[in-house]
């Protein structure tokens, strides 16, 4: 084969795939890996600059308390190095249209990184000289990052990108880069590919508690979300220890408010988020390890410890000293010293009570992420009443959707924990493989 033929073949390979997986979180990566191992050519599309989704940002996982990064990083690394998997980060799907041959034509938009991916070594010299800071979205705004940055230490790919909206165009990064890989001439790219099948693994959105005004999130600095606490507990944490964002104090009376944005018709999410009881219990155990003198109170409506080893994990937290209070929070108010007064109904006694804490963690729920349905042209990807991807044949074929050749994996179908997500991703890979065999 001549060089030109080689180039043409490469080009063909990069535009024609057996499967396009949308979303490179743990579900998408797992499906892509399984299908890649079976020999299928897989395109993995991720809108963020790193693959790994939300799991890569967690501290530890329940009920084993294994390090989340230690589980995610090898999987993510294997995905990135797999010869049958092509990954596009910073890329979103614009349209998916079925052709006459039943394959899908897909239009993608890849945002510019302003860094030549193949040349960046991740040395962070650019970050060191960048004079601009802005809130770090991967630390959930608890600390800052530079305008040119590597998303987080275990990001994959571990290369820099420039946040052009917050860049002051000083050129210091370009001067400092030892591999000359900063490229401000990069533009948004439109990519056209075809795929024989699609897996939707777009995950979930976290509930934003700013809409529940009585909890004071966004106004009271020491009311944080469970994802912010997750970051405070992670090895790559924003602070040097678990601290209050208001004044850097080590908290010693921490409260958890369960079901924030779950099982709540008033915020439009009537269902249980399945994971909040257990991740809060996990965080309570980690906090009791990190801050041995701290009192941890968890205000719950019902404990849902349904998975393998979950009830034992919950009992273990109680044995360690976690104080579970069956109570419904009415209101949180802030004192001058940053402490917080929780007014709640004690469900067991029926009395309204107040208690002071110096930090409150809102155990936020999971919401559907239905935007992907808009990209299908000429046919409709159906949603269920809660806006998750509908599974018309949930018991016999859980990855099947309302569209032939389009499958679904992980929390795009509804709230679930990590073991269930992995199983769902495996099911999606198997059903996709079966479909591809029937198609050929």
């Amino acid at each position, binding site marked *: 084969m001549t060089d030109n033929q080689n180039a043409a073949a490469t080009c063909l390979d990069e535009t024609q795939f057996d499967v396009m997986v949308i979303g490179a979180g743990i579900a998408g990566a797992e499906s892509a890996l399984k299908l890649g191992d079976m020999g299928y050519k897989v395109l993995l599309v991720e809108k963020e600059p790193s693959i790994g989704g939300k799991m890569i940002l967690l501290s530890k996982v329940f009920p084993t308390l294994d390090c989340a990064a230690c589980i995610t990083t090898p999987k993510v690394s294997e995905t990135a190095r797999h010869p049958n998997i092509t990954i596009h980060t910073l890329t979103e799907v614009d349209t998916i249209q079925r052709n006459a041959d039943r394959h899908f034509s897909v239009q993608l938009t890849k945002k510019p990184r302003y860094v030549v991916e193949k040349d960046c070594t991740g040395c962070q010299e650019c970050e060191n000289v960048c004079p601009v800071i802005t809130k770090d979205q991967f630390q959930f705004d608890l600390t800052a990052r530079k305008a040119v940055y590597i998303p987080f230490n275990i990001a994959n790919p571990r290369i820099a990108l420039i946040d052009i909206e917050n860049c002051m165009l000083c050129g210091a990064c370009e001067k400092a880069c030892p591999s000359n890989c900063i490229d401000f001439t990069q533009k948004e790219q439109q990519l056209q590919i075809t795929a024989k099948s699609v897996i939707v693994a777009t995950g979930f959105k976290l509930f934003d508690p700013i809409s529940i005004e009585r909890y004071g999130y966004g106004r009271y600095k020491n009311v944080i979300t469970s994802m912010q606490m997750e970051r405070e507990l992670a090895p790559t944490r924003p602070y040097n220890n678990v601290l209050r964002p208001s004044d850097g104090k080590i908290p010693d009376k921490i409260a958890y408010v369960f079901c924030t944005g779950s099982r709540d018709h008033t915020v439009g999410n009537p269902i249980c988020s399945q994971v909040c009881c257990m991740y809060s219990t996990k965080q309570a155990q980690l906090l009791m390890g990190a801050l041995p003198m701290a009192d941890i109170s968890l205000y719950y409506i019902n404990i849902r410890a349904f998975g393998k080893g979950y009830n034992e994990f919950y009992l273990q937290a109680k044995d360690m000293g976690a104080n579970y209070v069956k109570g419904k929070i009415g209101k949180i108010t802030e004192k001058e010293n*940053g402490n917080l007064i929780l007014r709640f109904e004690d469900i067991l006694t029926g009395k309204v009570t107040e208690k002071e804490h110096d930090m409150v963690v809102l155990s936020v729920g999971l919401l559907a992420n239905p935007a992907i349905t808009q990209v299908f042209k000429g046919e409709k990807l159906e949603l269920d009443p809660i806006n998750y991807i509908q599974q018309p044949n949930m018991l016999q074929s859980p990855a099947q959707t309302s569209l032939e050749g389009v499958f679904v994996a992980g929390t795009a179908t509804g709230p679930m924990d990590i073991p269930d997500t992995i199983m769902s991703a495996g099911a999606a890979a198997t059903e996709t493989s079966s479909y591809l065999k029937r198609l050929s």
Partner: protein
Amino acid sequence: MEKKEKTIDIIKQERKVSPQVLEDRKTYSRNRKAIMEVLKAGPKSIPQVAAETQLSLPDTTYFMMALFKFGDVQVNSLDDMDEYYFYELKKK
């Protein structure tokens, strides 16, 4: 390695920097200088730095943690009440 033409001059012709970005940059620069000036005298806790710089406590926490992340300051020790850390300038 082959030296490329600087691309910053090209994008400067196409984009303008927002006034907010310039203002935020000034704020960071001013607060960084103020915090590091106070820490020259020795290790201090966030409330102590806030009192001397006249910055709010949340702002002091945010900027101190940014300086901690960027390697400008480091943890010295914990106070006697085990409540606040003392931070000091990192020797470079």
